[in-house]
């Protein structure tokens, strides 16, 4: 694939100059769509938005992140621990480099301590859950910059 970066530059400039908020273009299987900030083209379906569920929802994707940012999510429901025992030091701290397969934390489920390993090598950017906090399936635990 070749992104039409150069052509795009001119197009983007043009569209911005003219205050466009949306642009869609399709030609023989080729399709392009551009949206600009401040153009909330959100289309809320008429859906009941009742009493919000109390539990944390799975984090929604953040489209603005750089391409090399990845998340490590909990593979099961349980309780999150940053260290192997209450007195021990955390497995990892923000800023360190982690290897693929390195243990990042423990999620306790059904009295079993499950070590969660990193799926990627990279730099730990953020720990998203407090020590001792309950986590649900798929909940994001760590943010990494993949190296």
């Amino acid at each position, binding site marked *: 694939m070749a992104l039409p970066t150069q052509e795009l530059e001119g197009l983007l400039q043009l569209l911005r100059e003219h205050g466009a908020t949306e642009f869609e273009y399709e030609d023989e299987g080729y399709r392009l769509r551009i949206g600009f900030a401040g153009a909330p083209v959100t289309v809320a*379906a*008429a*859906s*009941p*938005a*009742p*009493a*919000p*569920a*109390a*539990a944390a*929802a*799975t984090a929604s994707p953040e489209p603005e992140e750089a391409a090399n940012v990845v998340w490590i999510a909990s593979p*099961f*429901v*349980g*309780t999150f621990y940053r260290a192997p025992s209450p007195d021990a030091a955390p497995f990892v701290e923000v800023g360190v480099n982690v290897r693929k397969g390195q243990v990042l934390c423990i999620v306790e*489920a*059904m009295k079993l301590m499950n070590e969660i390993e990193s799926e990627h090598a990279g730099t730990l950017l953020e720990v998203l859950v407090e020590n001792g906090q*309950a*986590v*649900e*399936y*798929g*909940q994001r635990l760590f943010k990494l910059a993949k190296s």
Partner: protein
Amino acid sequence: MFQKILIANRGEIAMRVLRACRELGVRTVAVHSEADAGALHVRFADEAVCIGPAPSAKSYLNVAAIISAAEITGVDAIHPGYGFLSENADFAAVVARCGLTFIGPPAEAMRTWGDKLRGREAARRHGLPLLPGSERLESAEHAIAEAERIGFPVILKARGGGGGRGMRIVREASEVARAFDSATAEAGSAFSNPELYLERFVERPKHIEFQALADRHGQVWTLGERECSLQRRHQKLVEEAPSPSLSEERRSQMGEVIRRALRATGYESLGTLEFLMDERGELYFLEMNTRVQVEHPVTEMTTGVDLVVEQIRVASGARLELPDTRPWKFRGHSIECRILAEDPVSFAPWPGRITEYHPPGGAGVRVDSGVYGGWTVPKDYDSLLAKVVVHAPGREQALGRMRRALDELIIGGIRTNVPFQRRLLDDPEVCEGTMTTRTVERVVRELREGA
């Protein structure tokens, strides 16, 4: 009473349980798969926990995840709904071992009554009528002798399993030997157990089931019967209470036998005893379901008893509040139609986004649904969207009410079986109350032939 209940289910039954909890002042925890993050039960529960990805095996059937969710949310009981883990005695045992209450019968009672063969044995011991049948068939000659004793037609069945495999309907003695041989071979390969038995075969049976409810203090209620003869491939489509084919006398006689059997086995919680009714109106016990049934609302509407509230109450150790010797006061007639996301002609499942949803309302109409406008029905689960239930003084008025309710129901964006249900409601057998488990098959054939 419990403080907080985890509802280990989804869809309309999760909403059903959630409503009962709300009315009892009990807090609720919904569990859900990733595919159900926006589901109605998740939105209305006090708390919600994602327990796994879309496939049921990894979420709604994932015992470890459900128990963990119960632990991190600090519930004191788990309601299994129907399907999924609701009849899994091992799950009930795990729940109990974790110090939580399983809202259902004790694991042992589930093992006795939930198992087809052991359930039939318990039924026989306690005087419930069974279809005339044989012990294990030793040979084709034995099969002929037993068939002649019982009377043709008979059905050969595999002892090791169900689902139609190893089954043969035999209408005369000359057919027995060949059927015996082929069924033996089929059962052997399907279930690693070639053993067969035979039973009287009823050509056009009705499906009749009795609702029971027992507390742990030895009281048992029987709340009348439901007729669920309108089925397609063993999937119930329309249910009603009372059955148009059961006399008051028969109802109270069966109630007494059932109450005696359940008391004798120390049963507790909701239970449904399924019977087959033959052309002469005789009832034969088939099996027992040890959980709430999809079609429980028709019993609620004719008795005024909230079955799920009572199920939760008895699980918490409470006593049923009326003596079990009191005959129930029934009122009127109730019908339920299951609204499924499927093509009304091909019956192909039809998941997708519901663009519009407007349930019917007005007098005598109840809707139990797990959907809303804007929600996408996942492809991963069964196709039940909603149940439309009506109540009216008599059967004819109830049919009329159901027709107008289905005419009012709007579900846009996906296909549903509403047109098929609407067609069923006009079928002469249905209108006269003479439908059998073969009726739907005939209606489908007529539709296909353009009749």
